[in-house]
C-alpha cells in the first residue's frame, strides 16, 4: 500500500502527445476512478503507472520512490486487465500463483496465499479449473485474486466490469467495492462508464484530451462538474445559454433565477433531469408540453417541449407524475431550483 504521484508526465506515442504535463495524486488506500471518453488518455495513464510506457518528461512515484525508469516487473503493481488476460494454459490456482513464483516465494507459502486469495474472491473450490471452463464473472474474480495475491502497492483496474452483463455488473460492483475496502490497496479504476466510476470510487477524475478536467469526490464532481463536457459525460443534462442580468439568466424567452452573487455577462448553466421540479400551472416556471413519458420504476423520464422549441429532460418521482395525472400532450410548468443550476465553462 502506498501513495501514488504522477507529476508533469508527458507521453508521446507515434510522434503524437497523448499526455501533456499530467499531474495526479492518489492517496494511500484511496480508490480513484479515471473516467473519460475513449482516446482521452486514461488507458495511457494506466499503462504509464504500470510501467509499459516510459514518460518523455515527468515522474511517477510510488510511496515516494521514483519509478519512471523502473520496468513493470520491478514495480509491485497488480493489474486487472480489461479482458482479464488469464493464462489459458494454466489452471486457476497456477494463474494466481504466477506472481508469487516470479517473486520466488517458498512453495508452502505460495499454496497458502493462493488458497487465501481464492477464498477472498469466493472461488476456493475452483483452483483446478481452467479459465475457459469459467464464466465471465468468475474469470474476473480470478484476475482480481491474481492481482491482489502479490500484495501490490497499487492496484490498477482497466474497465473492470466492461465485459460483464448488466446484472453481473451490479453484483460485481458491490463486491469490488467491498474487496477494495477490505484490502485497502491504493487503486485506480479506468473506465468510460460514469455509473461505474461514481459508484466505485472515493474520488473521480474526468479526463479529456490527455488532461484532467475535473477531480473530486463523486457527489461533488457530479453536482459541480465545472465544464459542459464533464457535466454532459457524467449524465443527462439540460443546457441553458444566454446572458446574465440582475441575477437572472436570459436565455431566449426564458428568465431563469440564478443563485446569488453571479456576475453579469454571457453565461451557460446546466441542470440535471432529476433536479427539475414539477410546478402547479399557476406558478412561475418554464411552460412546456409533454412529448413523452417513460416509466422507469421509481422515476418517470419526462420529455417536454418548451415554447422556443427546445426539449427538456426531467426525471420526476413516479408518485408526482401519477398524482398530477400527466399524459402526453399535457401542458406542464417546470421549476429550476437556483441552487441546482450549475455554471459551466465550455
Amino acid at each position, binding site marked *: 500500500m502506498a501513495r501514488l504521484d504522477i507529476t508533469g508526465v508527458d507521453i508521446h506515442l*507515434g510522434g503524437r502527445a497523448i499526455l501533456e504535463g499530467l499531474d495526479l495524486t492518489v492517496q494511500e488506500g484511496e480508490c480513484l476512478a479515471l473516467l473519460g471518453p475513449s482516446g482521452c488518455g486514461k488507458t495511457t495513464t494506466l499503462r504509464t503507472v*504500470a*510501467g*509499459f510506457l516510459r514518460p518523455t518528461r515527468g515522474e511517477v512515484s510510488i510511496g515516494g520512490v521514483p519509478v519512471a525508469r523502473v*520496468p*513493470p*516487473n*520491478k*514495480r*509491485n*503493481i*497488480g*493489474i486487472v*486487465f480489461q*479482458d482479464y*488476460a*488469464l*493464462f*489459458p*494454459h494454466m489452471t486457476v490456482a497456477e494463474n494466481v500463483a*504466477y*506472481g508469487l513464483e*516470479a*517473486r520466488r516465494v517458498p512453495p508452502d507459502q505460495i499454496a497458502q496465499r493462493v488458497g487465501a486469495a481464492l477464498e477472498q474472491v469466493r472461488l476456493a473450490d475452483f483452483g483446478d479449473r481452467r479459465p475457459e471452463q469459467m464464466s465471465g464473472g468468475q474469470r474476473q474474480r480470478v484476475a482480481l485474486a*491474481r492481482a491482489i495475491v*502479490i500484495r501490490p502497492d497499487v492496484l490498477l483496474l482497466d474497465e473492470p466490469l466492461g465485459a460483464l452483463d448488466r446484472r453481473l455488473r451490479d453484483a460485481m460492483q458491490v463486491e469490488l467495492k467491498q474487496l477494495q475496502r477490505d484490502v485497502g490497496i491504493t487503486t485506480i479504476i479506468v473506465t468510460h462508464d460514469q455509473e461505474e466510476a461514481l459508484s466505485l470510487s472515493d474520488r473521480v477524475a474526468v479526463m479529456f484530451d490527455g488532461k484532467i478536467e475535473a477531480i473530486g469526490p463523486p457527489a461533488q464532481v457530479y453536482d459541480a462538474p465545472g465544464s459542459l463536457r464533464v457535466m454532459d459525460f457524467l449524465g443527462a443534462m439540460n443546457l441553458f445559454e444566454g446572458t446574465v442580468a440582475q441575477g437572472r439568466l436570459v436565455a431566449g424567452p426564458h428568465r431563469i433565477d440564478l443563485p446569488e452573487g453571479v456576475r453579469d455577462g454571457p453565461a451557460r448553466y446546466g441542470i440535471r433531469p432529476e433536479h427539475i421540479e414539477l410546478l402547479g400551472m399557476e406558478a412561475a416556471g418554464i411552460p412546456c408540453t409533454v412529448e413523452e413519458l417513460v416509466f422507469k420504476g421509481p422515476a418517470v423520464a419526462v420529455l417536454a417541449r418548451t415554447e422556443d422549441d427546445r426539449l427538456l429532460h426531467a426525471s420526476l418521482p413516479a408518485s408526482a407524475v401519477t398524482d398530477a395525472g400527466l399524459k402526453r400532450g399535457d401542458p406542464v410548468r417546470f421549476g429550476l431550483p437556483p441552487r441546482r443550476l450549475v455554471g459551466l465553462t465550455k
Partner: protein
Amino acid sequence: MSESAAFRTTVAILAWTGIAFLVFPVLVTALASFNEGYFIEMPPKALSLRWYGAIGDIHRIGEAVLWSLLIAFVAALLATAFGLGAALAIARHPLPGKPAITAVLLSPVTVPMVAIGIALVQYFVVLGVAFTWWSVAIGHVVLVVAYPVRTLLASLTLTNSGLEDAARSLGASRWRAFHTVTLPQLKPGLVSGFLFAFLISFDNYPISVFLVRGDVTTMPIELFNHISNNFDPTPAAFSTVYILIVSLVICAAEWRYRIVSLSIPKT
C-alpha cells in the same frame, strides 16, 4: 432443382473432385506397390509384398535416409528458431518496411527452386563449403524458413499479446514471461512450423540436386536415381511406407497440438 440446391451440388462436385485429385495418386501408388510383377500394372494381376522386401536394395537408400533425416532435422530446427524471431518481430513490434520484410521471408515459396539451388551452390563454392552435409542443411533453411514464419505468425495473431503484459506486471522478467507464457501459447505454431519445414526439406529434390555430391546424398536423390534406371515397383513400396509414416506423424501432431487450426480459420 432450386437455385440453392444447384449451387450446393456444384460446390460439392468441385470439392470431391479436388479430394479425388489429391487422394487418387496415393491410392495408385499403394496399389502398385502390392503388384506381384516387375512392371507396374494397373490393376495388379497378383498381389505380393516382395517389393517391400526390396526397399533395402535401392542403391545407398539407408545411408540416404539417414542423411536426409539429419539435414531435415537441422534445417527445420534452424528455420524454426529464425522463424520465431522473425514472427515475433513482425507481429509484436513496429517495424519500418514490415510488408517488404514479410514478403522476403515468405518469398522462397514463390521463387523457382532451381534458381535457389543454382544460387546456393555458387555461394557455397565461393565460400569453399560446398557439398558438405551442413551446407545442404543451411541451403534447405532458405527453402523452408517461410513455413515456420507463417505458422508462428498465425499462432501469434491468435494469442493475446496482453498475456505477456500480465506476466510482466506480476513480476516476471522478459525472459521468464516469454518462456512461461508466450512460448506455451506458440506450441502449435512451433510444432507445425517445424513439421512442415522438416517434411519439405526431407523430400526436396530440385535444390538438393545442386548441393549434393560424393559422400553426402539424400533420400529423394537416390530414389530418383533408382527410378531413372529401373521400372520395378520398389519406389512405390517405399513411397507407401513414407506416406503412412508422415500421415501418422501429422495425425499425432494434430491430436496433441491442433495444428490444423493454424491453417484453417475456426468456424
